[in-house]
């Protein structure tokens, strides 16, 4: 990573792949249950709604970034106003990403210890993931993007084939009338999912690495909208296969949907392969959050040798993940209004501070060059 961080550029496709994987993987495993519980069969609409929020956050950051050369608003603010002006942004952004990184570690360790390796201590899984994440972050943004692309391609294949495999599971007698739980349920589901969708703010750490030749709006749209359309499709498949009531009680309905697929008596248990893909995806997600936390923190603090700060932040995430408690505690907290407000406040706080900083920087600089 180090000094070469900004010089490495990734293509629009790789940038979108990182966004899709980051916005899809964890959400797929954890969100459907809570959305189906609140919105019923129309949980897919909730996913589209929160996708609009994710796009709003992503586009806001892209718009601000495009006001400056290199699409690096923090650098511009630092140069025009002074390093102190970026401290609040970097602090909130870094802390937010550290929190999301730790929670993602917790979610992966809970999932694997519940369903895959129940006898292995959860912290071991978390530590392995963190170790790999630290290594990948140390290598820079390109390995992250290329691995994300490698996860995305089979994911698209799964999305295309899965509906065919699930046809025998679907029945009109599992379908509810349209908006059976009312639009209020859709909105309530969207409120609970807002913190997740706001994670598109990681655009801030990625866009400076995006090739200047490509349109950032287009690829942000592809990445963020693509992930939410895919999520909406999967949630719809879950409700068509299980109805809306049963999956709202299952811990991981997304996993159960793969587990139920049996193409023949001998072609079944395909979830094992798909969960491997999911674990790779979750590693990328975790890495992206660690990368975002480390990069912005280091830039704000002027730290050039980032290896040790990566190790420290990576270890801190593992320790925080152990303090959350079990999966039920995690879900209980994620339903609290203060939790939602904290997340949304942090996300929009960063965007607003970034906007104010950018405005002041532009005034100091005069008319800047748009990227």
């Amino acid at each position, binding site marked *: 990573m180090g000094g070469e961080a900004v010089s490495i550029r990734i293509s629009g496709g790789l940038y979108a792949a990182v966004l899709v994987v980051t916005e899809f993987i964890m959400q797929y495993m954890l969100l459907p249950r809570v959305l189906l519980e609140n919105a019923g069969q129309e949980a897919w609409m909730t996913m589209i709604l929160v996708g609009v929020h994710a796009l709003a956050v992503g586009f806001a950051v892209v718009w601000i970034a495009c006001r400056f050369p290199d699409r690096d608003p923090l650098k511009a603010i630092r140069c025009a106003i002074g390093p102190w002006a970026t401290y609040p942004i970097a602090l909130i952004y870094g802390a937010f990403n550290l929190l999301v990184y730790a929670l993602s570690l917790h979610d992966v360790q809970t999932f694997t210890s519940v369903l895959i390796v129940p006898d292995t201590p959860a912290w071991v899984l978390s530590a392995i993931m963190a170790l790999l994440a630290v290594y990948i972050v140390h290598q820079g943004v390109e390995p992250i993007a290329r691995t994300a692309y490698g996860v995305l391609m089979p994911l698209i294949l799964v999305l295309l084939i899965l509906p065919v495999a699930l046809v025998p599971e679907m029945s*009109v007698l599992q379908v509810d009338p349209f908006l*059976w739980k009312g639009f209020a349920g859709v909105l309530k589901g969207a409120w609970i999912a807002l913190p997740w969708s706001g994670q598109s703010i990681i655009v801030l750490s990625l866009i400076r690495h995006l090739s200047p030749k490509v349109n950032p709006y287009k690829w942000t749209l592809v990445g963020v909208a693509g992930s939410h359309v895919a999520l909406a499709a999967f949630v719809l498949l879950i409700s068509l296969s299980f*109805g809306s009531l049963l999956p709202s009680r299952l811990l991981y309905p997304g996993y159960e949907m793969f587990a139920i697929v049996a193409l023949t008596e001998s072609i079944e248990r395909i979830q094992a392969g798909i969960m491997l893909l999911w674990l790779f995806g979750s590693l990328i997600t975790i890495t992206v959050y660690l990368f975002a936390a480390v990069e912005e923190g280091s830039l704000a603090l002027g730290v050039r040798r980032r290896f040790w700060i990566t190790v420290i932040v990576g270890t801190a995430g593992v320790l925080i993940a152990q303090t959350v408690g079990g999966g039920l505690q995690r879900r209980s907290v994620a339903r609290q209004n203060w939790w939602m407000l904290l997340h949304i406040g942090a996300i929009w706080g960063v965007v607003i501070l970034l906007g104010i900083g950018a405005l002041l920087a532009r005034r100091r600089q005069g008319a800047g060059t748009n990227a």
Partner: protein
Amino acid sequence: MRRRWLSLLLLLLFTTVMLSGCWSRIELNDIGLVLGLAVDVGEQEEVRLTLYVPRPLTQHLSGGGGGNQEPAWVVAREADNFADALALIRLASARRLVFHHLRVVLIGEEYARRHGIGDILDVLATNNEIRLTVRPFLVEGRAQEVLETLPQLRTLQPFNLTGIVQAKGGLEWRLKDVLVARMSDTHSVWMPTVKVIPRQAAKPLGPTTTVTLSGVALFRRDFLQVVLDPWAYQVMAWFLGRPTGFTITADCPTAGKGTVSARVLTGKTRVRPRWQDDKVAFRVEAIATVNVTRSECGTGAVKEDEVRQKLEQVLADDLRRRLELFITVIQDAVTDPVGFGKHAQLAFPRYYKMMEDKWGEEVWINTPVEVATRVTITQAGTVTGPVHPTEREMREGKAQ
């Protein structure tokens, strides 16, 4: 550069150690695969839990035909509840019992009537080892007996049971479907039933009993309401949209001549809700194409329109009577295993919302249901009609 390679090497070494799975390894020799699970009312305690664990064949036995060893370890324990009974079984097991390959869950009739199936379904849904593709059955009699009975065409009883269901016509009904029905306000739970019946042993020491699919069990709020005969299993297939392969047997058009049988080639059932006299009513339409497999009617070649229409009519009438009887039975039992409530909910959502709490217990049981059936004979095996009567008998007027 050297440091980078060193760190990569260390990382790979660490990962190799972790990925070896040694942390919580379980050797195959230490695992006992539970393939079947049966729950009965205990003789001394509330619950009697029986597990079916196949015995691993030793090298000597696998090469030499199996010897006299039973193919499976069928073990039962009694306790206050399911979890404690399982804990007692674990005390007797020399292998770690795992449920990843569980195929069937058998619930004894008395248990289902007395305790209901709610607790069992909760245990099954909660256990992360148990898949939602497990097939549940209600057993007429004691569930343990089914697991103790030697299967006829398969080596292990759980595979024998799933094989019977699949060979019968592929009426897939799994734990997932039971849980969906149980969670739903518009459906009630049903399960296929099996029972142990006597058989004539071919050898003096041969098994004297066998297991057969015996019908359908209907539940109301977790508790067993009624067990129906095998004909109801066929009717369930009609409502679930998979009647292919089932047989319709009806009285001949001329009374006293015997019966005619036909195998269903394709079949479809539509439930059409409609508004009638300020309340919901249903019209059930079943259509089928069939293959005549036998006939005692002496009607002549089925290729003749007149003959075919008469047979089609008696087959359609028989199907209609069965469907009507089934609907009457489920209304009397205050159950709705096929989802009439769901059809009403989809067609009249506002009305259903008002009646939601009363639907199953008060409204549905008095809802009029009209049944209409149509059967088309497209085939009579490999002939144009039953080979008797002969042309001469036809000319002499012996045939009708």
